């Protein structure tokens, strides 16, 4: 399955009113180093394997011109990622853009949730569940672990959901800021032994998130 990522942006010569407003807000927050903010759309499209051929790029270009972008006011950029992703088995390679997104939540460790801080045994607040070392996690009680999971989801829920949706996965396994494994059914859910060895090897907590039931 190939995935195409399409970025649609206003032509650089046009005033991006949304971007200008966001820039103003950034400046008001003290981020005076911000110089130019432009807002666009990010569209991902999965392409049927059987139809992936030499004219894939042309086909996507046509999609952009016909529908996804309005050439009068918008530019577009197409990135095709056709790295094979074997569900539930080998480590999934993340496309470059997704990797940048993935780096986001872990970097933002300074903002902590105001209420109900989860603490380590030594009383230190844990701001970033994704960055917690495995040895600390191992000695936590089940309740603490559940709280920590809750916190991870509160903090990074949209990112987690996006990773699941992008892979059409039933579950994903994250270590640090990376999705290292995923599976299309719960039958392939990783074993405790596997998680334990992974946690010890990387000294980071291996978090597994599953797709919520659909109604």
């Amino acid at each position, binding site marked *: 399955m190939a995935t195409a990522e399409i970025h649609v942006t206003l032509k650089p010569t046009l005033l991006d*009113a949304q971007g200008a407003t966001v820039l103003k807000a950034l400046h008001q927050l003290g981020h005076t180093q911000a110089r130019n903010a432009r807002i666009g759309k990010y569209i991902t499209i999965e392409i049927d394997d059987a139809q992936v051929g030499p004219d894939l790029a042309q086909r996507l270009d046509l999609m952009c011109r016909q529908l996804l972008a309005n050439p*009068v*006011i918008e530019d577009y950029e197409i990135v095709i990622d056709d790295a094979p992703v074997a569900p539930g088995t080998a480590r999934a390679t993340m496309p470059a853009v997704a990797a940048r997104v993935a780096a986001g939540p872990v970097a933002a460790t300074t903002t902590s949730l105001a209420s109900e801080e989860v603490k380590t045994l030594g009383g230190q607040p844990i701001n970033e569940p994704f960055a917690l070392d495995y040895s600390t996690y191992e000695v936590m009680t089940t309740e603490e672990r559940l709280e920590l999971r809750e916190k991870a989801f509160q903090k990074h829920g949209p990112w987690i959901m996006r990773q699941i949706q992008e892979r059409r996965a039933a579950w994903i396994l994250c270590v640090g800021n990376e999705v290292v494994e995923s599976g299309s059914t719960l039958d392939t859910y990783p074993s405790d032994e596997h998680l334990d060895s992974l946690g010890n090897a990387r000294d980071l907590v291996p978090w597994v998130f599953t797709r919520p039931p659909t109604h």
Partner: protein
Amino acid sequence: MHFGIIVFPGSNCDRDCAHVINDVMGHSCRLVWHENTDLSAFDGLILPGGFAHGDYLRTGAIARFSPVMDSVAEFAAAGKPVIGICNGFQILCEARFLPGALRRNSGQHFICRDAHLRVEHNENRFLQTTNIGDVLTMPIRHGEGGYYADEATLGEMAANKQIILRYCSADGLITPEANPNGSVGNIAGVMNREGTIFGLMPHPEAASEILLGSDDGLLIFRSMMEQITPNRALTADLNREFVL
């Protein structure tokens, strides 16, 4: 005159238009679902305001591919008048029936208030009952009303007298302050080259009864009903009559 009012999923000014055509002006109309393709019964078409297909992707981007749109093109090609109001204007631009595009208002906000419009040209099917320089008042209500076309296109449009309404002050001056949404050249309404299709962001149907503050919008509908302006197709008909 019998009007067809095209209803897309998410149109919401269709019944206001029908009220004006039927009850205020005493003409007839029918609502036409966007999947219908037979427009042969009508003398004029209205693409009303609203949020067709939820404005997903871009305003008008999906509606442009509705089955009715090919018939709209044929309708206009036959010389009959088509007006797109607000979302209808956005759809006509997305369909490339009109030049340019509409983008987010420069001030980011959805705007809902009266606007003043100056008549730039009246020798056309849509403003023939007005005078050049007239200031019309009617409401605007949109989030994506900033008209844009590149310089070359604007030059061509100006030469063809396609830019027929501009936002202005109460006394008819075209000023930056009178521009509510960042439209280039204060443009509020444009026609296609042939003069058969007209799109505007303001709502003439919401300014058609003095009880509601203005009936300037009637001038536009009346203009559509009077067949005196020579556009190409009509000119051909008139000539034939003359010869007979």
